[in-house]
């Protein structure tokens, strides 16, 4: 059996979710009623039986570390391997690495010491449900140096504009990596590479003063390396703007979409909160919504997502909205097309209405 290790590289991810990323990195943004963005990336790795995972974090990682702890929620509190959160701590005076190569250089021990033969490197902005062992199988069959994972999307949503696109020939070989807005082969920011080759590529990149491993070590070596593509056929959500966050969240209310992300055989794990079941009162009226535990609902909720411990008062109306952990919407308040970050309070009778294409976002711990 070939062993896989995982690296979640958050270094080049921008904190682009406005109010939601004022105080946290994108990977720690709450998503889908009870998860954080990074839960999907880690669960994909653990569901692929990967037991050794490194997270390269650079900025605003307090809430990320608080969430990940020792990795217990993902069964990663291991004696062998486990979860390694690797924020910057770089004191080597001879170190000449730059950019995300600083992470690779300073944590090269993770790559050297792991028992794995292959390494999966991914980010946290793409939400999908995959078994990387299938991709590894394809990687070995094609005898590729690097296998990039992509999806052929039906519709090119605006968030894909910033993604790389792939030209793939009939043999599954990648012949081009670019930003052509018309190309529907969207690269999912995930690739598989053999451990020893990864090490070599890192050394070469640092020696040449590069600063971005994917740009320089992979894209830049398209003609030297045998780079193949593995097509992922399930649902994909790329979240790199408030609009894409909002649209992909409400997509979860679509049963087919929901079922492809949340599969019994490959569940998404997250930190446990020990909340009681949610309580619906006699006056509550909830339709087409996702509700996490610990909620207390007395009002009207439709087409919305309620995170853990949300209170909706009597007579309140919540439509097309995303209400994060421990928010309180008091009686007779009206919310439409709104995203409330954690611990917000909307006072009695207040009305907040955003545009369907541009939701109104309230930052953490605000009282309106």
């Amino acid at each position: 059996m070939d062993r896989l290790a995982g690296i979640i590289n958050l270094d080049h991810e921008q904190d682009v979710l406005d109010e939601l990323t004022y105080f946290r990195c994108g990977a720690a943004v709450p998503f889908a009623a009870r998860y954080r963005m990074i839960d999907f990336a880690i669960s994909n790795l653990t569901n692929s039986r990967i037991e050794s995972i490194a997270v390269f974090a650079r900025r605003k990682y307090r809430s990320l570390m608080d969430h990940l702890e020792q990795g217990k929620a993902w069964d990663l509190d291991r004696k062998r391997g486990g979860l390694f959160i690797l924020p910057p701590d770089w004191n080597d005076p001879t170190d000449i690495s730059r950019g995300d190569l600083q992470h690779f250089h300073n944590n090269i021990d993770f790559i050297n010491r792991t028992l794995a033969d292959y390494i999966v490197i991914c980010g946290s902005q793409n939400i999908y449900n995959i078994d990387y062992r299938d991709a590894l199988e394809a990687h070995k069959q094609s005898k590729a140096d690097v296998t990039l994972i992509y999806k052929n999307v039906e519709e090119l949503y605006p968030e894909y504009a910033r993604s790389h696109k792939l030209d793939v020939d009939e043999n599954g070989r990648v012949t081009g990596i670019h930003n052509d807005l018309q190309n529907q082969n969207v690269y999912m920011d995930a690739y598989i590479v053999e451990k020893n080759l990864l090490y070599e590529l890192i050394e070469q990149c640092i020696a040449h003063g590069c600063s971005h491993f994917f740009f320089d070590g992979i894209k830049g070596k398209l003609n030297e390396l045998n780079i193949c593509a593995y097509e992922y056929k399930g649902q994909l959500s790329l979240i790199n703007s408030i609009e894409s966050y909002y649209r992909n969240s409400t997509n979860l209310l679509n049963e087919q979409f929901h079922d492809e992300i949340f599969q019994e055989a490959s569940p998404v794990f997250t930190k446990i909160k020990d909340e009681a079941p949610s309580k619906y009162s006699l006056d509550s009226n909830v339709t087409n919504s996702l509700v996490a535990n610990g909620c207390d609902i007395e009002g009207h909720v439709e087409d919305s997502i309620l995170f853990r411990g949300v209170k909706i008062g009597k007579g309140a109306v919540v439509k097309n909205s995303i209400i994060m952990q421990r928010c309180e919407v008091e009686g007779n308040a009206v919310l439409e097309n709104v995203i409330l970050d954690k611990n917000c309070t909307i006072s009695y009778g207040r009305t907040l209405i955003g545009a369907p294409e541009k939701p109104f976002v309230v930052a953490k711990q605000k009282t309106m």
Partner: protein
Amino acid sequence: MKNKECVAMLLAGGQGTRLKSLTKRIAKPAVFFGGKYRIIDFPLSNCTNSGIDTVGVLTQYEPLILNNYIGIGSSWDLDRKYGGVSVLPPHMQSEGGGWYTGTANAIYRNIKFLTQFEPEHVLVLSGDHIYKMDYSAMLDYHKGSGADATISVIEVPWEEASRFGIMNTDDTGRINEFDEKPAEPKSNLASMGVYIFKWDVLKQYLIEDNENEESSHDFGKDIIPALLYDYKKLMAYTFEGYWKDVGTVDSLWAANMDLLKDEPELNLNDHSWRIYSKNPNQPAQYISSCATVKNALINEGCRIYGTVDTSIIFYGVQAGEGSVVKDSVIMPEVKIGRNVKINRAIIAKGSVIEDNAVIGDPSPGSEITLVADEGSVMASSYATNR
């Protein structure tokens, strides 16, 4: 190693025959309650919240699920290097072995477990009651009064007092008489089955009780009367709050329904006294556009397309379009088809209720219908009381 001030012994071996088929394959403390919990979560969480970090769980009947559930105790934060939770099944010794023959015998046979912690006090609990109680307050009372044993009591309605073990006390709270299910109760202070003993006193009585061949080796029937006979100091500690014995199908149903009151006496959403539980990994619950949910507790992983009214729904339950679930308790992973009618029922874990089935008697006061463990109810059949 330092000694522990108080070690808890949780009696979780009971079969609970009055819960009928709910306990066919699991011990009573492992029975589900409140949309998410098992009965044993309550005493275990009380221990954690009271600062008692050493708990022995005495098991005997159908231990697989209970043992598995308790594991190393991490769900209740009881995975400790010194102490924590230990499951204590009956075992062989060089002088022989056998089943636990009574509650006192179960503790007697685990004297070695207790001795290793050299506790000053031993808290004895039963694993089949629903309540939130600060045992540390009771321990303070026990220590303050210098009692040899303290028994937690609750005031029950006078007309029900003859169903319980009743304590008769003087005005200082000292127990001078104990009546097990008296025909004419002299007091309405019922024993909750929560005892704190001085360990050296208890140990002596357990050893004596074991040598007494007449004894039934039971706390209520033998140990407490023996202590009273010897004029040992027994104090009653009055507990105020919600306490319910969920030993029968009807009381289990009623205790679940109590959670749906406007201001339930038992608040599960109290962050200062959480009830910990093993959390299954399930996505958020989905309430569809054709669903109606009123007066209900619903856990994660559910998908509701029908009507849920005044009911408790555990994790992973699916309720199909056109179905109506009323005044019922639906345990985990039950699949309810379309146009099903369920009234005043408890549906056990993993049951499949096929389309158009009708279950239960909606008339108020009628007996609660129980659909057995992993049973399947076919279309147009009528589940009877089992």
